[in-house]
């Protein structure tokens, strides 16, 4: 009975925290420097049909938006702004009364004009974070929250490394990411496994898997003379594209190799614990069995992650009269190569993790 009461209070607290967070995020305009406008009135104009040269039919509507500024020096002032949206909403948006938007206010002679800069989305992002944490807590209790710590630490580290890369601005910035990959691995492993022999074995396996896969990739690129690799198609590239691509690949590769190596090594250590007499050969075979099971699903995870990113762009290419081959080459091939590199990393880490763990465990007796 007491347990039930405790759960009830806990549930109430969780719901209350969600409500408070929601109320806070819809009223947090005072935290932002950029002016935020609350839309109080929307007047929809006429909708016109448009057709482009590829016979794509769409509709365009204009809106007259009135709103109040919520923060900064223009607080409580009223502004009118114009907006157009298309039916497909490729880069525009249909606004409704009550929505919050970031705006830029310009001084034009003695008149002030306003333009919408972007939509306020922090509420939804933070509420989703909250939901994730709550579920994690409900299903796993405090254990679950601990597993998120390593992700948060990695995220902070990642931001620091990006900052270093931009600050130092050296030509061979790939080195920064290669070294940071080693730091990422060490940090995550110590947090998840703890500082012991198992951690060292896993680290060695990951290092071998990642480094060898990368080496193979570089050799393959050199042998084929980068044929079909459109590094210039890399989104948002502001640095040497090939190095950027390799850096990104190392980070993606690391995650999967880490996943596979930890699974294998921890299973073998567990096996040794429950069956002290297990032989080297048995250990190695078990490691390979585990590897076999996880290899397929793991590479599929990556395929789906990388592929999802290309959906919108690929559809844009198709709709504007590009061929299958051209669209594939320019929107999907880089993501696919990243998946292939990670896949190679996984296949390499399976035997190496099994071998290293089996050897390390043999040394015990």
């Amino acid at each position, binding site marked *: 009975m007491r347990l039930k009461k405790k759960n009830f209070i806990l549930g109430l607290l969780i719901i209350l925290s969600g409500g408070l967070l929601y109320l806070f995020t819809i009223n947090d305009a005072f935290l*932002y*420097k950029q002016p935020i406008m609350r839309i109080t009135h929307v007047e929809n104009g006429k909708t016109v049909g448009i057709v482009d040269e590829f016979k794509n*039919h*769409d509709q*365009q509507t204009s809106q007259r938006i009135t709103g109040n500024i919520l923060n900064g020096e223009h607080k409580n002032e009223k502004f009118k702004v114009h907006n157009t949206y*298309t*039916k*497909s*909403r*490729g*880069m525009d948006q249909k606004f409704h009364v009550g929505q919050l938007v970031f705006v830029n206010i310009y001084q034009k002679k003695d008149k002030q004009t306003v333009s919408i800069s*972007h*939509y306020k989305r922090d509420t*939804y992002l933070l509420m989703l*974070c909250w939901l994730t944490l709550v579920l*994690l807590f409900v*299903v*796993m209790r405090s*254990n679950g929250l601990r597993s*998120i710590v390593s992700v948060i630490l990695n995220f902070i580290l990642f*931001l620091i490394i*990006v900052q270093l*890369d*931009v600050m130092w601005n050296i030509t061979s910035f790939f080195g920064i990411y290669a070294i940071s990959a080693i730091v990422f691995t060490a940090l995550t492993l110590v947090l998840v496994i703890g500082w012991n022999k198992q951690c060292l074995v896993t680290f060695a396996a990951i290092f071998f898997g990642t480094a060898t896969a990368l080496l*193979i*990739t570089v050799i*393959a690129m050199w042998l*084929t003379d980068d*044929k*079909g*690799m459109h590094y210039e198609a890399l*989104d948002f*590239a502001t640095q040497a594209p090939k190095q950027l691509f390799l850096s*990104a690949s190392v980070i*993606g590769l690391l*995650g999967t190799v*880490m996943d596979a190596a930890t699974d294998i090594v*921890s299973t073998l250590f567990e096996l040794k614990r429950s069956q002290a007499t297990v032989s080297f050969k048995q250990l190695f075979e078990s490691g*390979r069995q585990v590897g076999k*099971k996880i*290899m*397929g699903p793991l590479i599929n*995870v990556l*395929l*789906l*992650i990388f*592929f999802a*990113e290309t959906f*919108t*762009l*690929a559809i844009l290419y*198709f*709709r*504007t009269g590009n061929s299958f081959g051209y669209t*594939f080459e320019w929107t999907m091939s880089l*993501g*696919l*190569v990243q998946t*292939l590199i990670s*896949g190679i990393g996984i296949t390499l880490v399976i035997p190496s993790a099994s071998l290293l763990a089996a050897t390390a465990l043999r040394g015990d007796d």
Partner: protein
Amino acid sequence: MTTMILLTCILALFMFITSGRSGLYSFISLVINFILLFITIVLIAGGVPAIAVSFFTGICILAITIYMGNSGENETDIAFLATILVMSVMIVLIIPVEHLAQVQGFSNEDSEEIEAFNLAIGVNFEAIIISTTVLSTLGAIAEAAIAVASGLQEIIEQKPDITLQELRKSGQNIGYQIMGMTFNTLFFGMFGGNLALFILLYKLQATFGYYLNSKVFVSETMLVLYASIAVILIIWTTSELMVYRLAKQRKKNSK
């Protein structure tokens, strides 16, 4: 020969060397999944409703990922059922949140890449982002479902007199181990894919507030969050289904 073809050959070879025939199956399932995804894009571009096509593709991909390479045993069925259940729940979550957050289409940071295009191409970008979100969470849950189901099956076989409560506890333990690493895989997968974007945002001296509200950052982070939520749900669902099945079997045996 292009770099991609060479790397594909290397991957196929390595998969065969390390895992023999089951490696080859995994490789084939990868190829089939790729073809399915490609067809999905072509169909959506051709005007077929995006969410319906993706739902169908999603089920096909799940079936292929789960059943190929894993011999069709009882626990595989449970893993499949659990992923379908969680996928349905995720769709119910994703559709309203994506509608509210308005992260479809392209962002201001994309503009250089797409400036040659006219974006009024008569497709529903919101439906497209919903489909891609659902599909990208699928891979992660399929993997976790198999791992939990086969782990618990192993425990039931080794210790046939295990109590339901103990089995539930084991499910949690296995789930905890899987989760920590899956989170990292998702995290690195996403940042690996978006390294260039982060460098750009940093160079533009984006403030923390900008990160929290910009379309491109919010949509990428939400992808990882959806996947995490789905993984948590799948661990719980799979172990509950395994417990339920064991309870049902015992009831049947005692009669």
